[in-house]
Protein backbone atom coordinates (compact mmCIF):
# COMPACT_ATOMS: atom_id res chain seq x y z
CA UNK A 1 0.00 0.00 0.00
CA UNK A 2 1.28 3.41 -0.89
CA UNK A 3 1.54 6.31 1.54
CA UNK A 4 -1.47 7.95 -0.11
CA UNK A 5 -3.65 4.90 0.53
CA UNK A 6 -2.54 4.57 4.15
CA UNK A 7 -3.23 8.27 4.76
CA UNK A 8 -6.66 8.02 3.12
CA UNK A 9 -7.79 5.07 5.24
CA UNK A 10 -6.39 6.52 8.47
CA UNK A 11 -7.97 9.95 7.90
CA UNK A 12 -11.22 8.38 6.69
CA UNK A 13 -11.50 6.20 9.80
CA UNK A 14 -10.80 9.21 12.05
CA UNK A 15 -13.37 11.29 10.14
CA UNK A 16 -16.14 8.69 10.42
CA UNK A 17 -15.44 7.86 14.09
CA UNK A 18 -15.32 11.50 15.17
CA UNK A 19 -18.42 12.31 13.10
CA UNK A 20 -20.20 9.53 15.00
CA UNK A 21 -19.07 11.06 18.28
CA UNK A 22 -20.32 14.49 17.14
CA UNK A 23 -23.87 13.17 17.00
CA UNK A 24 -23.70 10.84 20.03
CA UNK A 25 -21.82 12.80 22.71
CA UNK A 26 -23.98 14.40 25.40
CA UNK A 27 -21.93 17.53 26.04
CA UNK A 28 -22.04 20.12 23.25
CA UNK A 29 -18.44 21.19 23.83
CA UNK A 30 -17.30 17.59 23.34
CA UNK A 31 -19.31 17.49 20.11
CA UNK A 32 -17.53 20.63 18.92
CA UNK A 33 -14.11 19.11 19.64
CA UNK A 34 -15.11 15.94 17.78
CA UNK A 35 -16.24 18.12 14.87
CA UNK A 36 -12.80 19.74 14.87
CA UNK A 37 -11.23 16.27 14.55
CA UNK A 38 -13.57 15.46 11.65
CA UNK A 39 -12.81 18.71 9.82
CA UNK A 40 -9.05 18.31 10.26
CA UNK A 41 -9.09 14.75 8.94
CA UNK A 42 -11.21 15.88 5.97
CA UNK A 43 -8.45 18.44 5.33
CA UNK A 44 -6.01 15.50 5.34
CA UNK A 45 -8.21 13.69 2.81
CA UNK A 46 -8.08 16.80 0.60
CA UNK A 47 -4.29 16.55 0.78
CA UNK A 48 -4.36 12.95 -0.45
CA UNK A 49 -6.39 14.26 -3.42
CA UNK A 50 -3.70 16.91 -4.12
CA UNK A 51 -6.00 19.82 -3.29
CA UNK A 52 -3.52 21.69 -1.10
CA UNK A 53 -5.27 25.04 -1.31
CA UNK A 54 -8.59 23.54 -0.25
CA UNK A 55 -6.91 21.76 2.66
CA UNK A 56 -5.54 25.10 3.86
CA UNK A 57 -8.93 26.79 3.41
CA UNK A 58 -10.56 23.93 5.30
CA UNK A 59 -8.23 24.38 8.27
CA UNK A 60 -8.33 28.20 8.29
CA UNK A 61 -12.00 28.84 7.50
CA UNK A 62 -13.71 25.80 8.98
CA UNK A 63 -11.62 25.01 12.05
CA UNK A 64 -10.28 28.51 12.63
CA UNK A 65 -13.47 30.42 11.77
CA UNK A 66 -16.73 28.52 11.81
CA UNK A 67 -15.88 26.12 14.61
CA UNK A 68 -14.51 28.90 16.85
CA UNK A 69 -17.80 30.75 16.21
CA UNK A 70 -19.70 27.64 17.33
CA UNK A 71 -17.63 27.40 20.50
CA UNK A 72 -18.15 31.13 21.18
CA UNK A 73 -21.92 30.68 21.01
CA UNK A 74 -21.78 27.54 23.18
CA UNK A 75 -19.85 29.53 25.78
CA UNK A 76 -22.29 32.48 25.54
CA UNK A 77 -25.35 30.39 26.32
CA UNK A 78 -25.42 28.16 29.35
CA UNK A 79 -24.89 24.49 28.68
CA UNK A 80 -25.51 23.15 32.19
CA UNK A 81 -29.25 22.77 31.67
CA UNK A 82 -29.07 21.16 28.27
CA UNK A 83 -26.74 18.37 29.40
CA UNK A 84 -29.15 16.90 31.93
CA UNK A 85 -32.17 16.77 29.63
CA UNK A 86 -32.87 14.05 27.10
CA UNK A 87 -30.67 14.38 23.99
CA UNK A 88 -32.56 12.43 21.37
CA UNK A 89 -35.96 12.80 19.79
CA UNK A 90 -38.74 10.31 20.34
CA UNK A 91 -38.78 9.41 16.64
CA UNK A 92 -35.12 8.33 16.55
CA UNK A 93 -36.06 4.80 15.43
CA UNK A 94 -37.76 6.15 12.30
CA UNK A 95 -34.79 8.46 11.69
CA UNK A 96 -32.38 5.54 12.01
CA UNK A 97 -34.37 3.43 9.55
CA UNK A 98 -34.42 6.35 7.09
CA UNK A 99 -30.67 6.79 7.46
CA UNK A 100 -30.04 3.07 6.95
CA UNK A 101 -32.13 3.17 3.77
CA UNK A 102 -30.19 6.25 2.61
CA UNK A 103 -26.73 4.76 3.23
CA UNK A 104 -27.87 1.47 1.69
CA UNK A 105 -29.10 3.24 -1.42
CA UNK A 106 -26.01 5.45 -1.77
CA UNK A 107 -23.65 2.55 -1.14
CA UNK A 108 -25.49 0.30 -3.57
CA UNK A 109 -25.46 2.93 -6.32
CA UNK A 110 -21.77 3.75 -5.86
CA UNK A 111 -20.84 0.08 -5.67
CA UNK A 112 -22.82 -0.86 -8.78
CA UNK A 113 -21.42 2.08 -10.77
CA UNK A 114 -17.82 1.86 -9.61
CA UNK A 115 -16.56 0.47 -12.92
CA UNK A 116 -18.04 3.35 -14.92
CA UNK A 117 -16.26 5.84 -12.63
CA UNK A 118 -12.80 4.73 -13.76
CA UNK A 119 -11.38 7.12 -16.35
CA UNK A 120 -10.11 5.36 -19.47
CA UNK A 121 -6.33 4.99 -19.75
CA UNK A 122 -5.78 7.42 -22.63
CA UNK A 123 -7.82 10.24 -21.14
CA UNK A 124 -6.23 10.03 -17.68
CA UNK A 125 -5.04 13.51 -16.70
CA UNK A 126 -1.34 14.09 -16.29
CA UNK A 127 -0.14 14.61 -12.74
CA UNK A 128 1.11 18.04 -13.77
CA UNK A 129 -2.44 19.27 -14.36
CA UNK A 130 -3.15 19.40 -10.66
CA UNK A 131 0.19 18.86 -8.99
CA UNK A 132 3.22 20.55 -10.45
CA UNK A 133 1.77 23.78 -11.85
CA UNK A 134 0.72 24.83 -8.39
CA UNK A 135 -2.72 24.05 -7.13
CA UNK A 136 -3.29 27.50 -5.61
CA UNK A 137 -2.41 29.28 -8.84
CA UNK A 138 -4.76 27.05 -10.83
CA UNK A 139 -7.65 27.50 -8.39
CA UNK A 140 -7.09 31.26 -8.34
CA UNK A 141 -7.02 31.56 -12.11
CA UNK A 142 -10.23 29.56 -12.45
CA UNK A 143 -11.96 31.38 -9.60
CA UNK A 144 -11.18 34.87 -10.86
CA UNK A 145 -11.56 33.99 -14.54
CA UNK A 146 -14.26 31.52 -15.42
CA UNK A 147 -16.14 31.80 -12.12
CA UNK A 148 -15.89 35.55 -11.52
CA UNK A 149 -19.66 36.17 -11.44
CA UNK A 150 -20.41 33.34 -8.97
CA UNK A 151 -17.54 34.68 -6.86
CA UNK A 152 -19.17 38.13 -6.70
CA UNK A 153 -22.55 36.57 -5.90
CA UNK A 154 -20.89 34.61 -3.09
CA UNK A 155 -19.49 37.84 -1.67
CA UNK A 156 -22.98 39.42 -1.74
CA UNK A 157 -24.30 36.29 0.01
CA UNK A 158 -21.70 36.74 2.75
CA UNK A 159 -22.63 40.42 3.13
CA UNK A 160 -26.32 39.52 3.47
CA UNK A 161 -25.45 36.83 6.01
CA UNK A 162 -23.40 39.29 8.08
CA UNK A 163 -26.18 41.91 8.09
CA UNK A 164 -28.79 39.26 8.83
CA UNK A 165 -26.95 37.70 11.74
CA UNK A 166 -26.22 41.09 13.31
CA UNK A 167 -29.88 42.09 12.94
CA UNK A 168 -31.02 38.75 14.44
CA UNK A 169 -28.64 38.81 17.38
CA UNK A 170 -29.25 42.49 18.25
CA UNK A 171 -33.05 42.34 18.20
CA UNK A 172 -34.67 43.42 21.46
CA UNK A 173 -36.54 40.74 23.38
CA UNK A 174 -40.10 41.21 24.58
CA UNK A 175 -38.95 41.70 28.17
CA UNK A 176 -36.81 44.75 27.36
Amino acid at each position, binding site marked *: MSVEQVLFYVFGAIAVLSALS*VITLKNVVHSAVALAA*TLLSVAGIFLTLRAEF*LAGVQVIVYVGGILVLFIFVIMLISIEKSIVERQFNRQ*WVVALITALLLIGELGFVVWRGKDSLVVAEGTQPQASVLGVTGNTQLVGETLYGQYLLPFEIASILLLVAIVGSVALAK*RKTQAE
Partner: protein
Amino acid sequence: MVPIHHYLLLGAALFTIGVVGVLTRRNIMVILMSIELMMNAVNINLIAFSSQLGHVSGQVFAIFVITVAAAEAAVGLGIVIAMFKNKETMNINEIDLMKW
Protein backbone atom coordinates in the same frame (compact mmCIF):
# COMPACT_ATOMS: atom_id res chain seq x y z
CA MET B 1 -3.98 5.61 -6.03
CA VAL B 2 -7.14 5.15 -3.99
CA PRO B 3 -10.10 4.23 -6.24
CA ILE B 4 -12.64 7.04 -6.42
CA HIS B 5 -15.57 5.00 -5.15
CA HIS B 6 -13.84 4.79 -1.77
CA TYR B 7 -13.98 8.57 -1.58
CA LEU B 8 -17.63 8.51 -2.63
CA LEU B 9 -18.45 5.89 0.02
CA LEU B 10 -16.67 7.98 2.67
CA GLY B 11 -18.70 11.00 1.57
CA ALA B 12 -21.92 8.97 1.69
CA ALA B 13 -21.07 7.75 5.21
CA LEU B 14 -20.35 11.27 6.49
CA PHE B 15 -23.52 12.60 4.84
CA THR B 16 -25.66 9.88 6.42
CA ILE B 17 -24.13 10.54 9.85
CA GLY B 18 -25.07 14.20 9.36
CA VAL B 19 -28.63 13.24 8.41
CA VAL B 20 -28.93 11.07 11.54
CA GLY B 21 -27.66 13.98 13.64
CA VAL B 22 -30.18 16.42 12.18
CA LEU B 23 -33.09 13.99 12.55
CA THR B 24 -32.42 12.64 16.04
CA ARG B 25 -30.76 15.30 18.18
CA ARG B 26 -32.76 17.90 20.09
CA ASN B 27 -29.93 20.36 20.76
CA ILE B 28 -29.84 23.04 18.07
CA MET B 29 -26.05 23.42 18.24
CA VAL B 30 -25.55 19.74 17.40
CA ILE B 31 -28.02 20.08 14.54
CA LEU B 32 -25.99 22.96 13.06
CA MET B 33 -22.81 20.89 13.46
CA SER B 34 -24.48 17.98 11.62
CA ILE B 35 -25.30 20.32 8.73
CA GLU B 36 -21.59 21.24 8.59
CA LEU B 37 -20.80 17.51 8.45
CA MET B 38 -23.11 17.10 5.45
CA MET B 39 -21.47 20.01 3.63
CA ASN B 40 -18.07 18.43 4.24
CA ALA B 41 -19.29 15.17 2.73
CA VAL B 42 -20.33 17.07 -0.40
CA ASN B 43 -16.90 18.74 -0.54
CA ILE B 44 -15.15 15.35 -0.42
CA ASN B 45 -17.19 14.21 -3.43
CA LEU B 46 -16.51 17.42 -5.38
CA ILE B 47 -12.77 17.28 -4.80
CA ALA B 48 -12.54 13.55 -5.49
CA PHE B 49 -14.13 14.09 -8.90
CA SER B 50 -11.99 17.18 -9.48
CA SER B 51 -8.80 15.21 -8.96
CA GLN B 52 -10.14 12.19 -10.86
CA LEU B 53 -11.03 14.23 -13.95
CA GLY B 54 -8.01 16.55 -13.71
CA HIS B 55 -10.29 19.56 -13.77
CA VAL B 56 -10.08 22.30 -11.17
CA SER B 57 -13.74 23.40 -11.31
CA GLY B 58 -14.71 20.97 -8.56
CA GLN B 59 -12.32 22.69 -6.17
CA VAL B 60 -13.80 26.09 -7.04
CA PHE B 61 -17.26 24.74 -6.29
CA ALA B 62 -15.94 23.40 -2.98
CA ILE B 63 -14.85 26.97 -2.15
CA PHE B 64 -18.41 28.14 -2.85
CA VAL B 65 -19.77 25.38 -0.61
CA ILE B 66 -17.45 26.56 2.18
CA THR B 67 -18.70 30.14 1.64
CA VAL B 68 -22.31 29.01 1.94
CA ALA B 69 -21.40 27.00 5.04
CA ALA B 70 -19.87 30.10 6.64
CA ALA B 71 -22.96 32.20 5.82
CA GLU B 72 -25.24 29.45 7.12
CA ALA B 73 -23.27 29.17 10.35
CA ALA B 74 -23.40 32.95 10.92
CA VAL B 75 -27.16 33.18 10.37
CA GLY B 76 -27.83 29.95 12.27
CA LEU B 77 -25.87 31.09 15.30
CA GLY B 78 -27.66 34.47 15.18
CA ILE B 79 -30.95 32.57 15.31
CA VAL B 80 -29.64 30.45 18.22
CA ILE B 81 -28.74 33.57 20.20
CA ALA B 82 -32.11 35.21 19.47
CA MET B 83 -33.86 31.98 20.44
CA PHE B 84 -31.92 31.74 23.67
CA LYS B 85 -32.76 35.37 24.55
CA ASN B 86 -36.46 34.72 24.10
CA LYS B 87 -36.92 31.17 25.37
CA GLU B 88 -33.79 30.38 27.46
CA THR B 89 -33.45 27.01 25.76
CA MET B 90 -31.45 25.17 23.12
CA ASN B 91 -34.04 22.41 22.81
CA ILE B 92 -35.78 22.58 19.44
CA ASN B 93 -38.85 20.74 20.75
CA GLU B 94 -39.72 23.81 22.83
CA ILE B 95 -39.62 26.07 19.75
CA ASP B 96 -43.07 25.10 18.49
CA LEU B 97 -44.79 28.46 17.93
CA MET B 98 -45.36 27.75 14.23
CA LYS B 99 -46.10 24.04 14.69
CA TRP B 100 -49.60 23.10 13.71
